[in-house]
C-alpha cells in the first residue's frame, strides 16, 4: 500500500457528504442524479465530491453506459479498515494485557511472580 494513496483515501473520508455518498454506493451502483438527490447541494458540488472519491480510488465510473454509473471500489476501503483496526486493536489488546497484569499483581501481593508455587493464595 502506498502512503500517498492511503492519504488520499483519508482526505476523501474526512468529509461527511462523501461518506454519505459511499454509504449509498454500498447498496449498489447508481447514477450521479440519484446520488445527488438526498443532498441540498448543487450538481457541480456533487461532481466535485465524486472526483475526489474517484481520485482516491474509492469509486469508479463506468464508461460503458451513457449515464456513467458510480460504483464503490473495495480495495482502498479495506486498507483504511485495516489501518483503523490497527489503532483500535493496539489499545484494546494493550488494555487486555494491562488487565491481566493487574490481576496478577493483586493475586500475589508479595510480587513473587517468578515463584509459581507461592501463587496459590486465597481469593
Amino acid at each position, binding site marked *: 500500500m502506498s*502512503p500517498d494513496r492511503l492519504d488520499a483515501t*483519508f482526505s476523501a473520508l*474526512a468529509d461527511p457528504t462523501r461518506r454519505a455518498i459511499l454509504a449509498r454506493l*454500498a447498496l449498489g451502483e447508481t447514477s450521479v442524479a440519484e446520488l445527488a438527490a438526498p443532498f441540498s447541494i448543487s450538481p457541480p458540488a456533487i461532481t466535485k465530491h465524486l472526483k475526489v472519491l474517484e481520485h482516491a480510488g474509492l469509486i469508479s465510473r463506468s464508461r460503458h453506459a451513457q449515464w456513467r454509473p458510480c460504483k464503490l471500489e473495495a480495495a482502498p476501503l479495506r486498507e483504511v479498515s485495516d*489501518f483503523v483496526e490497527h489503532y483500535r486493536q493496539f489499545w484494546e489488546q494493550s488494555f487486555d*494485557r494491562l488487565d491481566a497484569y*493487574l490481576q496478577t*499483581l*493483586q493475586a500475589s501481593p508479595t510480587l513473587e511472580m517468578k515463584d509459581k508455587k507461592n501463587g496459590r493464595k486465597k481469593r
Partner: protein
Amino acid sequence: MDAKNVSASTAHEFVISRTFNAPRKLVWKAWTDREELMKWFGPKGCTLPHANMDFRPGGIFHYMMLTPDGKEMWGKWTFREIVAPEKLLLVNSFSDAQGGITRHPLSDSWPLETLSTTTFEERSGKTTITIHWSPLNASAQEISTFNGAHEGMQTGWSGTFEQLEAYLAQA
C-alpha cells in the same frame, strides 16, 4: 505547505476508555513505571526489547516495539504534564532508534505529533482509564488525515462502515 495551527480545520478527538478491577495507585504505577509498562504495553504478542524512561515533565519514554512477525517499531512519548495519580498529558510520535521524530510508516500526512490526555478515575476500588487523543501543531492536511481515519473509529460512521464491510465481504 499548510500553515500550522489552522483554526478552520477542527480536529476530532479520538476517545477510548476501559475500567480495571484495581485501585488507582496500582494502575498509575503500571502506566508510569518502566519495568511495569514493559510487561503490558502493546498489542498481543508484542514485546518491548528497548525502553528508556525519564518520568518527569519534559522527560521521555522512548521504546522499540517488536511485533510477533519480527517488525521493529520505534515510538516516543514526551511528558507534558504529570498529575499523579490522576492525569497524564503526553506528546506521542513515531521515532527512530536515536529518538528523532519520524513520520507514520504508512501515512505521509499522519500528524507528526499527537497529544494524549489520559485520566485515571477511581470508583469503589475500580479504576477507569480514558484516553483523549488529538493532533498537535498539525497542518490542515494532517488534521484532515487524522479526522478521516478517526471517522472510521467512531460509532456514527461505524453504522455506515458495517454496510461497507458487508459490501467488502462480497466484493
